């Protein structure tokens, strides 16, 4: 008799457990986190995100929520991490930061991410600059990512080095020197040659970032709007490549290693005088200067000008994968982190530029001087640089083309082992091998 009873109890417990599991999985009936129902949310970001203080603030405002954060050193490693976990079907955090460069790949499997419309995305949609919100929406109208920052590009330059080369060094004169609103890449390279002649030093750190800026600036980049590859037989792209190759051949590239820069030493030893700076890059430079022991005296400044006009490089999104056990809580956290007030704080911590209108306005109104960049009002400058930015369609292999196709070709230019024609044909060969016939 006892035996039987125990069986019944087990069966009831089993059914109850299954019911609990079933309710736990469906987002609609997910119980909100509270002190009695503690929830741990995992978040994965990369690079310089500036969220650490915000996590603490959120935990305080929402008792029961514990944020467990992971930050990956750079975007490409975050991509590998996210792809691996997507392929494995488990292991993704509740909130995952996605970079614009590999958003195209993610869009191909957008059904693996929670449609944020189910969690009130429509109500806050007007927060963002419209193209940023559209980027995070898949072709079926599902919103899979809230924008964090955007990457309008300004020109970082080293005032001290400019002065030593007999060039103007204050922000306004520098912007004018490069052509102000009509700044072109031709002027940029011409000034580079002058600088090289005066000092014998390089103008930019390496060709890769200049190339990224050039491509991001085009109306259509590696892909056309319809998603067709747009490299071979694209005269505009080839012209830009040849211009860059000529500059590099003239010794304007310092042939530095991307994301390494000798642990930041290249930023303090005068290896190069200009640097293409999307908003988030300001945070990167700050980190590099810190690791090299350089401070404000290293001379870096930020000018309200960019060769070739408005350009946007990068920017990120926060997404909630469907594997999350607490999609509602995760979506709430993602919405909070990307809300204007928090974007202002993020911008202060990470030096990046917010993607919501109100936060941008606040940055302009505050005009906080940035001590790392010779007290430049970076927020105001970036807001100016964001004017006229158009979102470019990013295809599924955009980041592969940037890193594995053009990366090697540009490195050949930097190392001086190939001329423009050879490097361009190397890029096309790689494109065929790695993307077309992959």
């Amino acid at each position: 008799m006892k035996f039987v009873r125990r069986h019944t109890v087990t069966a009831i417990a089993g059914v109850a457990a299954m019911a609990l599991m079933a309710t736990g999985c469906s987002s609609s009936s997910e119980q909100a986190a509270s002190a009695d129902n503690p929830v741990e949310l995992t978040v994965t970001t990369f690079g310089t995100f500036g969220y650490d203080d915000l996590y603490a603030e959120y935990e305080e405002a929402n008792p029961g929520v514990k944020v467990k954060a992971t930050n990956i050193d750079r975007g490409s490693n975050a991509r590998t991490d996210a792809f691996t976990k997507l392929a494995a079907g488990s292991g993704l955090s509740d909130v995952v930061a996605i970079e614009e460069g590999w958003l195209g790949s993610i869009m191909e499997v957008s059904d693996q991410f929670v449609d944020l419309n189910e969690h009130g995305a429509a109500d806050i949609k007007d927060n963002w600059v419209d193209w940023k919100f559209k980027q995070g929406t898949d072709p079926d109208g599902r919103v899979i990512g809230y924008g964090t920052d955007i990457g309008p590009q300004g020109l970082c330059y080293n005032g001290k080095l400019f002065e030593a080369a007999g060039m103007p060094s204050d922000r306004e004169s520098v912007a004018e020197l490069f052509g102000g609103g009509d700044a072109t890449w031709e002027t940029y390279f011409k000034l580079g040659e002058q600088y090289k002649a005066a000092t014998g030093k390089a103008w930019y750190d390496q060709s890769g970032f200049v190339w990224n800026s050039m491509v991001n600036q085009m109306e259509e980049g590696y892909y056309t709007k319809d998603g067709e590859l747009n490299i071979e037989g694209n005269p505009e792209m080839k012209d830009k490549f040849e211009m860059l190759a000529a500059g590099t051949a003239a010794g304007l590239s310092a042939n530095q290693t991307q994301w390494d820069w000798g642990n930041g030493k290249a930023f303090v030893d005068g290896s190069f005088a200009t640097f293409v700076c999307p908003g988030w890059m300001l945070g990167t430079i700050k980190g590099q200067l810190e690791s090299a022991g350089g401070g404000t005296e290293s001379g870096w400044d930020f000018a309200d000008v960019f060769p070739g006009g408005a350009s946007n490089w990068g920017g990120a999104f926060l997404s909630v994968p469907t594997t999350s056990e607490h999609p509602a809580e995760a979506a709430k956290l993602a919405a909070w982190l990307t809300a204007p007030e928090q974007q202002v704080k993020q911008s202060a911590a990470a030096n990046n530029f917010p993607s919501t209108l109100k936060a941008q306005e606040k940055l302009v109104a505050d005009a906080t001087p940035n001590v790392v960049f010779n007290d430049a009002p970076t927020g105001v400058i970036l807001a100016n640089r964001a004017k006229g930015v158009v979102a470019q369609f990013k295809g599924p292999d955009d980041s592969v083309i940037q890193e594995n196709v053009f990366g090697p070709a540009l490195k050949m230019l930097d190392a001086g082992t190939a001329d423009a024609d050879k490097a361009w044909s190397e890029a096309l060969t790689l494109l065929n091998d790695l993307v077309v016939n992959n």
Partner: protein
Amino acid sequence: MTTTLNRPAKPVAAIKPKPTFKQRLNVFDVKASPYLYIAPFFILFALVGLFPLVYTFVVSLFDWHLLKGQGDFVGLQNFTEVLQDRFFWNSLFNTVSIFLLSAIPQLAVALFLAAVLDQNLRAKTFWRMSVLLPYIVTPVAVAMIFTNMFGEQYGLINNVLGNFGLDPVMWKSETLPSHIAIATMVNWRWTGYNALILLAAMQAVPRDLYESAALDGAGALRRFFSITLPSIRPTMVFVVITSTIGGLQIFTEPRLFDPATAGGSQRQFQTTVLYLWEMAFQRQNFGKASTIAWLLFLIIVLFGVINYLISRRIATADAAKPSRSTRRARKRAERTTR
């Protein structure tokens, strides 16, 4: 508990009595238990060894996208394409080159170290432990420190060279220097470990052999080449095989030597495993990545067979069978590497 003695007498039957449940259990126990005892290993092996091997082969027969999953069945097309892929052969060349650059100096130095440690030193344990020290450092830390040292513009080594007025070595953009740099990391990590295994074998060589050789007038060098080396040959073969397998699977060191690329901007030091990684996680072609994995497996098997044949020849050429203690030392060594 009742025993058969206390049981009431069984009814005598003309036919053979049906075995009781307990008897059948006993028979089952005797026949099946041994298999059950060894089952954990085989179950684990099937789960984490055999199944992935077979599954990888299945994946290699398909167009398989990392994120989008299984596509069309393509048969052996992935194999023919990978075998015609210049990057695959480049990666194989790099792997073998780095392997040779690491294995040969490593064995030579390990032998020398073992011979030194085999002498009557003061504070023996201290010296033996210290050669093992690099082995317990995680390879990631090793790679990061060495990568810094081998930096082209800011690295320690090129700085020192510059102080002597020498040209910097392009450690990361030229093929041979990059292979030497990576081989250095591997050697730093594995030399001491191999030295200890060889030392264990050397310790087992009967001392009276040395004594009689010395009495016959053989010098230290002669004793080393004519007594030590032949006696530790089986262990040498073991060390060669394990370092071959390890060398062909090298990944961490070249991966971290230039974290921004998958083995150098022009694939100067892209090993086969690194190419596999690029194929799977950057180019997102899981089918071809599985194909590379299988080809690498076959290559390692091939190397293993060659090693085996050579070691058999050595064993038969070796007139004196290895002593029991040598074999024991080898077994001990095998166990530690597993």
